[in-house]
């Protein structure tokens, strides 16, 4: 091997050592991150009484899977006919130190007011896609192990076409250990969405409800005030919609709304001059995430706000008042001067007349 080649090989070795050191750090960090919760346990367990296996923290993750294990999906989406059924899987990984039994629940899904997916909690009754999912009531997973559990989605014969959201989750519940005071049981769950689209007539539609607008004037004559607009949008169709809106300007994406849901959306305040009546056009548009070929008729609404330019009028009035004062004062003083001149002339004439007489 020539000297140049040897040096190049040495360089490569250094590269590799750096890379392996870096990867090693990642492994350590990952292990550390996983180990952290158990470090936190002793402090908390001590306050609740003696430490036992039941007091160990539980760490788990849930992901969509196929029969062999987790696949790379973030959630489950199925397109089914009414009356059809399909089998999907979820993988539960127990990353804690003790064998744990997890309860499995499925329920109707919905989007919160901030657009986050959630599913109904225990005690709330599911009426739609949540009732279509059949899954074992519980599963026991060994420490460090993964269990793949099948679940079936059975679409009823009379299901309406369109998107039906549901969720499935694995949960652990705490049991009260002290009977002192009022108990709050904590049910913690990790899950994912199960979206089922029933084939048939997909009819996306949206409508605007209440629109409110408010004008806030500026205290500076030379800067515009602000117009704040908020509106209610209802998904009146049977598909999930991605909403975007525009107020005589560029379109802004606002998130998704499930069929039948209503969301209140507030726009960032826009600059507007107080031109007595401000009128802008609000356009709310939707698109169907599951099918780009479907179009949704946008909804428009004229937003008006009364914006009397009080400050500008006050300043204008002030200017007029000052000008009027100045004009009047000038007139008075010139009138005074004219009078004085007249008197002076009369004086002069009198003196002249006296001089002539004398």
């Amino acid at each position, binding site marked *: 091997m020539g*000297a*140049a080649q*040897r*040096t*190049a090989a*040495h360089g490569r070795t250094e590269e*590799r050592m750096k890379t392996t050191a870096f990867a*090693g750090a990642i*492994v350590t960090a*990952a292990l550390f*991150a996983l180990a952290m*919760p158990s470090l*936190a346990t002793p402090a*908390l*367990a001590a306050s*609740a009484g003696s430490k036992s296996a039941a*007091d160990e*923290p*539980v*760490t788990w*993750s849930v*992901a969509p899977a196929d029969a062999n294990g*987790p696949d*790379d999906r*973030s959630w489950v989406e199925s397109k089914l006919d009414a009356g059809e059924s399909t089998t999907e899987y979820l993988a539960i*990984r127990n*990353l*804690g130190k003790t064998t744990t039994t997890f309860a499995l629940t499925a329920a109707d899904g919905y989007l*919160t*007011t*901030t657009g*986050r*997916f959630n*599913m109904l909690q*225990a*005690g709330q009754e599911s009426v739609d896609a949540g009732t279509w999912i059949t899954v074992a009531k519980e599963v026991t997973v060994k420490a460090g192990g993964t269990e793949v559990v099948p679940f079936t989605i059975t679409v009823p014969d009379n299901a309406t076409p369109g998107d039906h959201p549901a*969720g499935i*989750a694995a*949960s*652990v*519940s*705490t*049991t*009260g*250990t*002290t009977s*002192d*005071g*009022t*108990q*709050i*049981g*904590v*049910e*913690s*769950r*990790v*899950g*994912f*969405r199960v979206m089922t689209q029933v084939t048939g007539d997909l009819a996306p539609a949206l409508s605007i409800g209440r629109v409110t607008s408010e004008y806030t004037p500026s205290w500076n004559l030379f800067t515009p005030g602000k117009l704040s607009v908020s509106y209610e949008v209802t998904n009146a169709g049977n598909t999930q919609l991605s909403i975007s809106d525009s107020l005589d300007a560029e379109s802004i994406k606002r998130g998704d709304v499930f069929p039948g849901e209503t969301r209140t959306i507030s726009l960032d305040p826009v600059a507007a001059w107080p031109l007595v009546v401000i009128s802008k056009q609000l356009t709310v548009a939707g698109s169907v995430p599951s099918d780009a070929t479907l179009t949704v008729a946008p909804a428009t609404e004229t937003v008006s706000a009364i914006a009397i330019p009080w400050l500008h009028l006050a300043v204008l009035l002030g200017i007029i008042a000052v000008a009027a004062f100045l004009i009047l004062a000038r007139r008075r003083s010139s009138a005074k001067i004219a009078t004085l001149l007249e008197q002076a002339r009369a004086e002069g004439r009198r003196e002249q007349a006296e001089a002539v007489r004398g």
Partner: protein
Amino acid sequence: MGAVTLAAVGGSGFAAAADYGDQDVDVSVDIAKIDNGALALTVDSESAALTEAGSTATERQFTGTLPTVTVTDTRDPEDIPEDTYWYVLGSITDFVGDDGQAPIDSAESFGWTPEITEGDPGNVSAGSPIEPGEGFVDPEILSMAYDSKIINPDGSWSASADLKLLTGADVAPGEYSATLTLSLFE
């Protein structure tokens, strides 16, 4: 260009050391990519008890602490799809008495103040406090400012919350219980 120059310099060095012999030893380690990282939730196996504190003549107040919840993300950022967000939200049932008392409406009486106990507050926030009476509707206890891929390197985030139940002084005494559900979704 730089590499060639280095080799030339090194070349002369090696030439000088030729008498001592030279052995490049290749050190390499194959660290397999962690294919099975996961987004996981950790909770302590404890319930939260509310004890009376700070009551006045017209209102009774009960406070407690939510056991810490921790989210860990050990996935390879390459494996995380764009525009995905995880979050933990809470929901609570009404407080039901053990002896037929009228249930205490959580929307009118229950609130919490979440706080981050671990994690970069620039990336993940604790969610706004809810005062009893505001209505406890799906508040977030851990929510991110960016997306899962961007904050993934931080690895671990924890939050806890101070819980508060505020009732009228005429609330029927007894043991009440409710279930607070914490949900991690992405």
